[in-house]
Each structure stands twice: as C-alpha cells, then as structure tokens.
C-alpha cells in the first residue's frame, strides 16, 4: 500500500464513520416522534420498493421524470465504479478486471461512459428547465432551496466530467482500452500533453473522491437527504386507503394537548416524510389552493417543516426534557393550515409518497381542540353539529321532512332490509340536495330495491368535523351513529355523497363498524347492468362532461362507474376535463372549506368552472353534493348558469 492509499483509506473510513454517526442521529431524530405501526405486509412493502424505487413508477408518471430516472440509475451505477476506484487506490490491483475478467470490466467501463454522458445530458436539460422554462412546480420563495438544487446538479456534473478525465488519463497511460470507453477517449485526446498523465489522473481522482466524501457529509444536511429518506419512506408508505386519518384516544381525562403543535407530536413516519422530500414541487403544481394564490403550498409546507425539524432536533436530541418549538406560527401559518381542501392531489403526485394531508389535519386538531383557534365561520358549524347533528342549524327533527309524501320506508319500521340509504346532511336539508335524494328514492323504488332511511335518527356522518380537526366532535357523532346503525339489520349502506362513502368505507371500520358502503354511482350501475333499472334516458341536451370528485375518484378509485352510467343513460361518453380521474381538480369544498369564506386569491370553484366552460359542454355531471353546489355557485358567479346545467348522475336515469 502506498502513502496515498493509506491517506485515502483513513479519509474514507473517517467519512464512512461520520456518515454512520449522521445516519444514527437521523434515526434517533425519528424516534422523537410517536409510534406508528408500519411494519405489516412486508411483501407489499418490498413490492412497493421494486415498483416505485427501481422502476421509478411515480417519477415516470410525468415525462420529465425520465431525467430523474437517468440520473438515478446512472449515478448508482457510476458510484459503484467510484467505490471500486477508491478501493483500487487503496489496494493496488483491485478492480473489476481482477474480479470479473477483462470482458466484463470492459462492459462495465463502456456502460459507465454511456450512462455518464446520459447523466450529463439530463443535468443540462434539468438546469434548462429550472432556469429557463421555470415550471410552476418549482416556484418557492426560499433562495436556499434553489442554491441547493444548483449545487447538487453542478457537483454531479463536475463529478462525471472528472470521471471522464480520470478514465481519459487511464487511456493515455494504457490502463484502460479506449474502445471500452468511447467518451473517455475524447477526454483522453483533450488531456493528451497536459503534463504527466499519471499525476493528472491522481489529481483528478483525488478531487473526485474528495467531492464524493463531501457529498456524503453534505447530503443529510440539505434537501438531498431525500436520497436517504425516500426509499424507506416508500417502504413504509401508507398501504391502506388514501382517505384515512389517525384515530385519537380521548380516554385520558388529564390530557392537556390534542393534535400536533410541535415535531414531537408527529409519528416517526410523519417525520420520515420530511426526510423524503426532494422538493420536486409536483404536489404544488397539483394543489388547488396554490393554483388559486392561497398561501398554502404542500411543497412549501414540507420544506418549512423540514427546516423546522432540523433546527429543533439538535435541542431535542440533546435534552429529552427540552421544550420543542411550536410549528405554528414559526414555520407554518394558520392561513396555510386552513386553506387545505384535503383533496389529496399532493399525495397522488408525490413520488416518495409523502403524506401531506395527515400533517395538516394534525395541526388543525391542535388548533381546534386544544386552543379553540379556528376561522370564526366554523364555530356555528361545530355548534350546529353538536346540537342539531348537521352543519346548518336546521332542527334535527326536521331531517326527514324532504321525504314527506313520498312514502319512504323508515328503518325504525322495517327493522330488516337490504340497503340502508344514507341521505346525508345535504340530501336532507339543502334544497338542491333534496332534489337528488328524491330522484334517488324514485330510482330505488323503480328498481324494486328493499331499502330504508334512518330519517330523524340519522346524524351527520362526522366527516367534515374530522377534516376540520374537531376529532372529539367527530367521534361523538360517529359513535352515536354506530349505536343507531347497530339497531337494524341490512347488508349495505348506500350514499350519494363521496365524503360519506369515504367515511363509512374507510373510517367507520376503525371504530368497529364494518358494514360495507357503496356509492350511488356503483350501486346504480349494478342495477342497470343487472337489468333491474332501465334508464329513462334522453334528458341531456348537447355534450356533457363528468367531474371526478376527489373523495370518489382519487380517494376511492371509483372512476369508471359514473362514466359507464352516463353512457348507459344515453348521454354518450362524457367529455373529459384536462385534469380528470385520479388527477382531477378539486371543486374547493372539502376539508371544511364549504363553510368558510374564501377571501384570498381566486376562487377554486371558479377555476374549475373556467376549465369546464373551456370544454364547451351544456351539462356537467357530478356525483357529490359539495361539487354540485360549488359548480352551480361558480356558474352563477360567472353568469353562465343559463348555458350550463349541473346534474347529479342520479338525476339522469
């Protein structure tokens, strides 16, 4: 071993040790969070890593992801080569050739060159996109974020060029065959005559390796910690339905704090999310709040929270009794927290599967339940739910008035039946929603379905209260509803509201109620396909579009059924919005926003209506009472309510 080799070995070991210490610190920092069980279903988790890490499936969902794919695999492959080179400098004679023979070594060398060139190309394109095209998703007001991006792209570029340089000198000295390294051969020609090739090669190699060592220490302290966090985050991703929130325990009567106000209140997985973000900004580009100029951006949220965590963890790791810094308002403002519609578009786009919504809801829970700080429009909504079990202060005993004269069977009379039709608050009290409920009842009767409604026994399903952070109120409602539901025997709950569907399908089971729920689009399609319901047809003039509700399409995968239903009703295939299916754009009402004033930026519902008007249709189909209201309000605001009609899919059969 040479002196050079020994020095390199010592440095290498030291850096690896330091890296180990850092990784240990990162793992310890995750332990500051609360426990969460993500250690189930190892098979699915390993498969997730194969699909989303190896195959980069989400990254490639947008064509620009090809750049990342190239840089990712290219860099991995090339880094293997770097370690081989370092070891060869420590232990002369070590290398691919010694291990695998000339032919394989030659192939590896060739691949290195080709990938290296591709990576260079990808970096140039990336820099071009970032600084010339300036996509919306990368817009953030923190200059440090941009600096970090430039630094890493620049450094990788330099590393690859250095690699070509080192291999180039090796070609000059004859160690490497020029035919196995076509790009390095070019470097060789450039470097020929620049001093002693051995010395030059060593110098270039040393610079290269020092940069790598720097990288190892720098990465965990920049946004590139993503490299360490993304793979575990994908492994530990949420394998359950998208639309679940954690269930809280209110048994402890001495508890002073509910929800999250600082980093210790999150679970380790929620903290790991912060280490997984590479600031690609795809979440931001899909976020309805961001796109309508609200202060909220999921990109910024995670960025600021990571900064907060990094700043706070030092103190928290040093002293277990240290007081953690509150996240609000230091790093996140209340306005950002309330601007979220919980549409989940951010989570749908995120390549490392960061879960933005559950953090926002946890922050809301603290504001609502511990501090009683929330937009004043919400107080009457909470009070109304507490007293009259609906958000609108309509007397609870009037809940079944919409059904007067329609001879709708009551669960309390029938006791046993096939389907429970859950009318919901909108269906019971909102004039437009009542229209849908009546249409639904007519269809159920026509198809001869054995159904019943709960009537005045029905209470708000609790979804809005949960999304607004009032978990206590939500649980009170959920538990009360379950008590009522258990009194009767039926096979399924039918609802015309995706929020209700999501709650019954995904959240009520966590409270011990497992009866399956079905959305009316699924149910009606079942009836039509089974011949029990023949569409009356012919009630749509001109072309129609269908809007995918967030809680129906994105959260519960019900995308094809409404479209089939529309086609079956004789309205033809609906025209698609540019953003449709799982990538649908929110109507703006979710997350409790339906009951709040929208005073910042432009209106989300009007943005979606603009999109609809651009389609040139005469009818818009929805399958959700919130979406229905948002579209109708939006059309009225633009004075186009005469030209475009909004209909629920139940109204066209």
């Amino acid at each position, binding site marked *: 071993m040479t002196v050079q080799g020994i020095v390199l070995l010592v440095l290498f070991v030291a850096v690896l040790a330091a890296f180990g210490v850092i990784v240990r610190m990162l793992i310890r920092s995750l332990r500051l969070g609360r426990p969460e069980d993500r250690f189930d279903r190892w098979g699915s988790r390993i498969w997730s890593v194969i699909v989303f890490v190896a195959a980069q499936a989400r990254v490639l969902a947008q064509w620009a992801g090809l750049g990342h794919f190239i840089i990712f695999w290219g860099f991995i492959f090339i880094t293997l080569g770097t370690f081989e080179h370092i070891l060869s400098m420590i232990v002369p004679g070590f290398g691919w050739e010694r291990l695998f023979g000339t032919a394989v070594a030659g192939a590896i060398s060739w691949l290195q060159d080709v990938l290296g060139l591709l990576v260079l190309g990808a970096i140039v394109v990336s820099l071009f996109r970032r600084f010339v095209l300036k996509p919306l998703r990368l817009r953030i007001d923190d200059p440090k974020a941009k600096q970090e991006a430039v630094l890493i792209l620049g450094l990788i570029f330099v590393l690859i060029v250095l690699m070509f340089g080192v291999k180039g000198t090796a070609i000059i000295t004859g160690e490497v065959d020029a035919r196995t390294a076509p790009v390095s051969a070019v470097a060789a020609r450039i470097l020929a005559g620049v001093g002693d090739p051995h010395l030059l090669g060593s110098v270039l190699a040393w610079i290269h390796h020092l940069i790598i060592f720097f990288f190892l220490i720098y990465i965990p302290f920049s946004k590139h910690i993503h490299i360490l966090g993304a793979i575990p985050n994908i492994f530990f991703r949420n394998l359950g339905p998208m639309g679940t929130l954690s269930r809280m325990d209110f048994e402890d009567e001495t508890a002073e*704090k509910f929800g999250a106000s600082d980093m210790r209140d999150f679970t380790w997985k929620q903290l790991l999310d912060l280490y997984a973000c590479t600031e690609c900004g795809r979440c931001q580009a899909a976020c309805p709040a961001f796109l309508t100029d609200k202060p909220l951006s999921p990109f910024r949220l995670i960025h600021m929270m990571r900064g907060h965590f990094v700043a706070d963890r030092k103190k928290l790791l040093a002293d277990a009794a240290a007081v953690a810094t509150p996240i609000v308002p230091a790093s996140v403002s209340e306005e950002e927290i309330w601007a979220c519609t919980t549409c989940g578009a951010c989570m749908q786009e995120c390549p490392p599967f960061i879960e933005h919504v559950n953090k926002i809801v946890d922050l809301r829970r603290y504001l609502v339940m511990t501090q009683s700080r929330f937009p004043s429009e919400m107080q009457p909504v909470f009070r109304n739910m507490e007293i009259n079990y609906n958000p609108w202060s309509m007397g609870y*005993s009037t809940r079944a008035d919409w059904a007067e004269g329609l001879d709708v069977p009551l669960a309390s009379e029938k006791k046993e039946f096939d389907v429970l039709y859950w009318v919901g608050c909108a269906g019971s009290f909102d004039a437009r929603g009542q229209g849908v409920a009546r249409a639904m009842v007519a269809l159920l009767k026509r198809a001869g379905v054995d159904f019943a409604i709960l009537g005045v026994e029905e209470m708000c399903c609790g979804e809005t209260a949960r999304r607004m952070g009032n978990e206590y109120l939500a649980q009170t409602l959920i538990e009360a509803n379950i008590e009522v539901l258990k009194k009767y025997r039926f096979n399924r709950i039918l609802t015309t509201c995706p929020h209700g569907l999501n709650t019954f399908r995904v959240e009520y089971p966590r409270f011990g109620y497992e009866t399956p729920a079905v959305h009316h689009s699924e149910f009606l399609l079942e009836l039509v396909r089974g011949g029990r319901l023949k569409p009356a047809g012919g009630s749509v003039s001109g072309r129609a579009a269908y809007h995918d509700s967030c809680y129906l399409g994105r959260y519960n995968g019900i995308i094809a059924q409404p479209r089939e239903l529309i086609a079956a009703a004789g309205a033809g295939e609906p025209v698609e919005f540019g953003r449709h299916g799982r990538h649908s754009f929110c109507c703006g009402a979710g997350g409790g926003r339906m009951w709040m004033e929208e005073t910042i930026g432009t209106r989300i519902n009007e943005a979606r209506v603009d999109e609809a008007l651009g389609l040139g249709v005469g009818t818009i189909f929805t399958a959700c009472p919130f979406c229905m209201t948002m579209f109708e309000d939006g059309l009225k605001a633009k004075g186009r309510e005469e030209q475009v009609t909004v209909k629920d899919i139940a109204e066209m059969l």
Partner: protein
Amino acid sequence: MKVVVLLKRVPDTEAKILINQEGSGIREDGIKFIINPYDEYAIEEGLRLREKLGGDTKVTVACMGPAEATEAIRTALAMGADDAVHISDPGLAGAGPFTAAAVLAKAIGGEGFDIIFCGKQAIDDDQAQVQCILAEMLDIPQVNAASSFEIAGDGASAAVGRRIEGGEEKWETSLPALISCDKGLNEPRYASLPGIMKAKKKEIRTKTLADLGFSEVPNKGRSRIVKWLPLPKSGECRMVEAGETADAVRELVRLLREEAKVI
C-alpha cells in the same frame, strides 16, 4: 372580584316546538336543550373580565333549573367558568319571574358577588324580567341588553353601551350591578377539549329550596297561562298574484299590514 353569571337551560328553538296533547305546554320529546344563547354572551363577558382583572377573580355560574341542567352548566364550566351553584327543586317547575328572582337573590346574595352578568332574555319565555326583579331584590342597579362593556380602572363603576331604536345609549353604572347581555357584546368562545375535560371536575353546588331557607315556593302563582296557541299555518308560501303587477304588489302591502302586521 366575584363575578356571577346567570344561566338558563332552554329548548333549542331550531327544533320544532309543538304544543302537547293536553294543551298545557310544549312537547319535550324530540327537543334538544341548550344554554340560552344570550347567556353565552354573559359567560364570555365574565370570562373576559376575569382575564382582564386576573388575581383571584372568580366566575361562578348560577342556574335555576331541573336536574338535566347540569349539562348546560358543565358547558359553561368547559368554557372556563370556575364553579357553579345549581338550584334545583321539583317545586320550582314552571316558576314565574318573581319566584326565580327571589330564589336567585337568596343563592347569589348568600354567596356574595361584585358583578352579575346574564342574558337579556331567555328564548323560551322571552320575558326579560328576571334580571330586573333580581336587581331590585339585591338592591343593585341594572343595565339591560349591553352591547359594550368596559369596567373602570378602579373597579367601582363601568361604562355600558346598549342599542335602542335608531341609536346607542351610553350608560354609566356604579358597581356592584347587574348587566344583561345582548348579541354583539362579544364572540363566545368555543370550549376547548382540555376545558371540557377539566369541567368534569369543577364544583357544582346543588341547592334545594330548603337549602336556601325557603319553606315554600316564594312568590308563587302570580299568573296563569290559559291557552297555548300555534302560529297560524305558515307551511305554504302565500303567492300573491294578480293580472297586473301593480295590483299584486298592492295586495301584498295590504296583507303585510293587515294580516302579518309588520308594516
């Protein structure tokens, strides 16, 4: 300072209020009971006063009502009141204002007070009398339907604003006094969850008539309800139509004046 807040448990008027079969009162099944909304402004003002004065200022809730009223009292405690006195006695069912005032005067007078807040009226009987009779019995001044309240620095007087037709009166009152509260005085806070938990342990002193020293119901039977009447059937909207628009409007005005009596 001792702050007392009066509280009444009333039916939620969003509910369908119907007359019972005997015609002797309202049907209570299917009705939710809440804190009288105007009393909430009183509770909030009491809490704000405590926050402003600090020290050993305490807010005590005083409620005359049936056993079920404890739910409403706990809500007030959850908002932040310190403790409560609950006067409950079967003999007090259907009590009139003079009875209620006498009972409350005894209970509050017995415990001592520096200022009393209450709602301007209870939304069940809508009488707005108890507070004035109580003030008279306790020999303190009262200002009704306050929309603004400011205690003087020395705590011996307060400036109170109240709305009247076409304007606002600015009062000055010495303390102790009774202030009844109107909408717009403040925004009642939403009870936080820790508040709700703590409320379960706060003290509610329950008193019967005997505990207060009454051998019989005071001031009983000064009036009698002889009939309960529903509103004229308002289910259908009366669509006013006529050949000419002007005629229809004229008819509408006539109806508003003679039938609805709102002009």
